[in-house]
């Protein structure tokens, strides 16, 4: 008999990986804070506010990772129709929204002293805000669906449409205007001071490890929710069968 009441749920999805991620986060986060506030030099022109950069840029990396993973898993879900792809897509979208919220909050805090304004209709700002709105809409759509299967299907469709729209949004706003600093060499900037660059690299790794841990925890919560739903349904069925009130 394999009814839900006899099956023990193994909540640890990937065995040793989860404890390892916990340890990594516990070590990396304090080390990162130490590097951000004690090790890297204060930037000459902008002063201490520039240190927000070590939260802002890694959050953006983690956010983009979430969006990319969501699109990939959405496509895989429509193809294979396996619940696990939908779980990952949903979890990555949720975490991407969290990280982009950090990006959108730290950006203005930096921009106010440096640019003299909280916000401007600039390309990266606009496209990031649009991205945030799109994935917030994705989460709302998922909550509005009638059943889990519909939720997964609609989520996947929106995840794919959103990913197709991203480069177009980015291009179109870029033609509009752009003044966001291009610091990194890969995005056409002059590059950073070597210590700052290593600091940024460390922070980026930390945020991505944090992303992985959050993703794992969120997926596990999803598995538990499914399990709970199955149990509730099972009990309801049994109750209805045993004592027809």
């Amino acid at each position: 008999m394999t009814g839900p009441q006899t099956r023990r749920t193994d909540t640890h999805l990937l065995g040793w990986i989860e404890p390892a991620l916990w340890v990594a986060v516990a070590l990396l986060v304090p080390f990162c804070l130490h590097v951000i506030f004690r090790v890297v030099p204060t930037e000459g022109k902008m002063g201490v506010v520039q240190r927000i950069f070590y939260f802002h840029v890694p959050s953006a990396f983690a956010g983009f990772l979430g969006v990319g993973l969501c699109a990939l898993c959405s496509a895989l879900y429509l193809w294979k129709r396996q619940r696990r792809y939908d779980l990952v897509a949903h979890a990555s979208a949720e975490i991407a929204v969290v990280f982009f919220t950090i990006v959108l909050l730290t950006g203005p805090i930096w921009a106010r002293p440096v640019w003299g304004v909280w916000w401007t209709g600039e390309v990266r700002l606009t496209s990031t805000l649009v991205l945030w709105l799109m994935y917030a809409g994705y989460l709302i759509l998922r909550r509005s669906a009638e059943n889990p299967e519909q939720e997964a299907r609609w989520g996947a469709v929106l995840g794919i449409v959103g990913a197709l729209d991203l480069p177009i949004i980015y291009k179109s706003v870029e033609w509009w205007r752009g003044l966001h600093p291009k610091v990194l060499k890969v995005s056409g900037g002059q590059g950073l001071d070597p210590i700052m660059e290593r600091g940024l690299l460390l922070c980026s790794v930390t945020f991505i490890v944090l992303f992985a841990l959050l993703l794992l925890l969120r997926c596990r919560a999803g598995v538990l929710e499914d399990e709970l739903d199955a149990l509730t349904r099972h009990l309801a069925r049994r109750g209805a069968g045993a004592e027809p009130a």
Partner: protein
Amino acid sequence: MSYWRAVLLVAGKDLRIELRSREQVVSLLFFALLVLVVFNFAFDFTVIDFVTLGPGVLWVAFIFSGVLAINRSFQNEREQERIQGILLAPIDRSAFYLGKVAATVLFMTAIEAILVPIAVVMFNFRFSGRIALTILALALNTVGFAAVGTLFSAMTTRTRRGDLLLPLLLFPAAVPVALAAVKTTTHLLAGRPFERYASWIALSAAYDLIFLAAAVLLFDYVLEE
């Protein structure tokens, strides 16, 4: 039944329903007119040049009334579960989608055709641009907006908060179209040379192609029961 005949039938059905009641186009038109009137109060167009602000005002009116049109696009099918009939019909589901897009584009075009002359009079603007190109720009952006909107609306009409949810999803996704529309219209109204806005027209065309193709591929998954 051939594919395109199915598309025409679906679009024709929506148009016939509309022609019999004239409910939708009339209320949309009044709504769009109200938007223009509000802007007419909000900005003093004797001081502000219509070329700088007008395209934005016009497209806000088009897009807002467009959202209402798209929101109602699946209303008929939703009532009394008529959608089941469409799903059982021996036509491709993407043909159903394209028919819906065609009907929405026609509704929006009707609104635009009435609204543009009214705006020209209301804001005392002398249009000296190129009419054919203006119509092309309007058409390209209307199609893009309707293509994405119809795909989303097939999902949102089946939720409780559908009429709120549609703009929430559609506006961010339609940012490129809105931007291209306003930019192209500005250049056109100012009578600038074609090279200045050719890339914006190309963007609208690319957007239309990408999203019509994606929606045709994805629509099956949206309607699946």
